[in-house]
């Protein structure tokens, strides 16, 4: 998949060509809106948040070959850590950026802790443990009502600030650029890892764990690093998404469906490819958060109400679309839209 560092004789650039084009296009999107009134830069912020989650999951699933089915739990951990440390109803109120950093660290530690018992076991066990963890984090957040406000969710959350400027909720474009910047930073940092000794260890463990071990690579450390990085990034994504809607939402929002949405992002976009993940986020979240609601609205305007029948609400086809995306991609294009091999230069 990644023939990464060695294919170039000089060190790999900060971004691949595909990534440059992609980020260029994303940067141009709001400018385009100045001319045409599309109104999509606001919902596209969700795409950017999920793209960060996707990059995190890609480190675990794509680079290290570990199937992680509970990434939503780390989004929840990130969102709640961020909320408790910043929300005005709690005493801490450490502010947006320190809160984001804390979410990253707490998520990473939680990710490493969770993986620890399964590192020496067959891969499927990690899948089932992460899946179970995804479920019980929701339970924990619901049950510790005193701390997490139970099913109410925590709000309001602080809006970001950047060089003295605070962002108001009616300026989606400035949020958009900020989130794009964070996504860019995540992409570059993970790309650095990908093209380094750490990335090589991840790939080696993915390709053949036993051979890697016979080359003195300690698979438990390698996997722990990957799980921590993945969970940390997912937590950042969760915190950003929560900040976007100024609420953590209820714990039940971070359910298996969200984990699978993240998995779809990685698999549809191109497993093991950073460019692919961002493309996957555009496709999947674009469908989930932009296209389906829009379609539902149009249907309702056309007089075909969503309340009359379960079959006419586009939202009810979500599971089917996710499921078909996974099955068909595996069958016909297992490497995804952007295959990792073509991605690099």
């Amino acid at each position: 998949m990644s023939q990464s560092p060695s294919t170039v004789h000089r060190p790999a650039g900060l971004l691949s060509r595909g990534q440059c084009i992609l980020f260029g296009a994303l940067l141009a999107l709001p400018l385009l809106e100045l001319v045409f009134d599309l109104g999509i830069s606001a919902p596209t912020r969700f795409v950017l948040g999920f793209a960060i989650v996707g990059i995190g999951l890609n480190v675990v699933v794509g680079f290290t070959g570990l199937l992680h089915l509970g990434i939503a739990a780390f989004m929840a951990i990130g969102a709640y850590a961020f909320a408790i440390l910043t929300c005005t109803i709690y005493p801490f109120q450490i502010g947006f950026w320190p809160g984001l950093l804390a979410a990253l660290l707490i998520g990473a530690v939680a990710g490493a802790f969770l993986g620890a018992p399964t590192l020496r076991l067959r891969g499927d066990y990690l899948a089932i443990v992460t899946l179970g963890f995804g479920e019980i984090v929701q339970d924990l957040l619901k049950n510790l009502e005193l701390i997490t406000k139970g099913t109410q969710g925590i709000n309001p959350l602080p809006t970001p600030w950047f060089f003295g400027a605070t962002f108001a909720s009616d300026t989606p474009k400035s949020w958009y650029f900020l989130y794009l910047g964070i996504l860019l930073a995540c992409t570059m940092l993970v790309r650095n890892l990908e093209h380094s000794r750490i990335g090589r260890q991840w790939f080696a463990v993915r390709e053949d764990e036993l051979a890697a071990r016979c080359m003195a690579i300690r698979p438990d450390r390698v996997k722990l690093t990957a799980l921590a990085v993945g969970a940390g990034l997912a937590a950042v994504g969760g915190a950003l998404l929560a900040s976007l809607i100024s609420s953590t939402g209820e714990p039940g929002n971070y359910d298996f469906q969200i984990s699978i949405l993240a998995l779809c992002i990685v698999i549809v976009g191109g497993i093991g490819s950073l460019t692919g993940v961002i493309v996957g986020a555009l496709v999947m979240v674009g469908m989930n958060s932009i296209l389906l609601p829009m379609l539902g609205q149009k249907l309702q305007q056309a007089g075909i109400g969503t309340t009359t029948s379960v079959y006419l609400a586009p939202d009810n086809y979500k599971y089917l679309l996710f499921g078909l995306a996974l099955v068909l991609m595996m069958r016909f294009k297992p490497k995804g839209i952007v295959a990792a091999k073509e991605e690099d230069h």
Partner: protein
Amino acid sequence: MSAVPIIEVDGVTMRFGGLVAVNDVSLMVDQGSITAVIGPNGAGKTTLFNAITGVYDPSAGRVLIAGKETVVPLDAKAWWSFAVFGISSAFLAAVFLHAEGLWLHAVTENYEYLKPFPWMKGIMDAAAYVIAHGGWAALVGGILGAAGRFAIWSRTRRTPEIVAESGVARTFQNIRLFPELSLAENVMVGMDRRMRAGFCASLLRLPSASLERRHAREEAARLIEFVGLGTKIDALARSLPYGHQRRLEIARALASRPSVVLLDEPAAGMNPTETVELMELIRRIQSTRTTVVLIEHHMRVVMGISEKIAVLDHGEKIAQGNPTEIRNDPRCIEAYLGKEDLG
């Protein structure tokens, strides 16, 4: 050269259920030598290799590398890790089981509206609360944590990575390269043992990491050249023909600068020309003061380059000696050709 054998196999037995794959085999490999392990199919040669390299844990007996047993000792470091896991899980259990009380006591009670949170006092109160109330939870959590760490530790006392760390590298009978990585990267994985770049250096692409990577790449190119794979170091490993894959595996093994390298049927599937090149390569490896142990069926290779040969049959060592001795040993001839051929 020192008198300590680089590998000493001492009465190793490997049992799988009822099957005894290797039965009480002892073997000495001298430093700097080329030793061959031969025997008919199913004699237990690869199983012996697996036992030496830590892939399998011997059912009985032990393996010494350079006179030392490659087992994680029950030393201060091990005790320390049990203690760390025990204490941290005790802490986690105490905090989680009393989360709400802790929150009330340390956070809610210390909070005054519009005043910054008194972090020090909060932490002290939290600690006091955990000490006062978390006793049972901490005890149970601590015991489970320490015992869990011990359980995992005792399952992984002798693993391939620990043996590899002590300077043993190997190749595999059914080639196990990293197919989707390039030639250079495959070899660089081999060098990982000697690399030092850490997480932060890699994340931020610090000059130290970049420099190390560049050197590693140059060395990888040299090694690939050394095993005769030319200069196409950026092709994917899976694109190589079979014989070349075997050589790349050897390059990967050599990349860790091992003191001994174990080759499992390196000549399998090679044509006569390649076989001759391989013999040449093995001699060159020996000339870099690396000990070579190989499993091989090609008698020309075995007889041509080995200094010492051990013969396995049905999991037992039936003979050992230099090529001439083995060639004339009746038991070996019997094992290879069958009894009736003797007559």
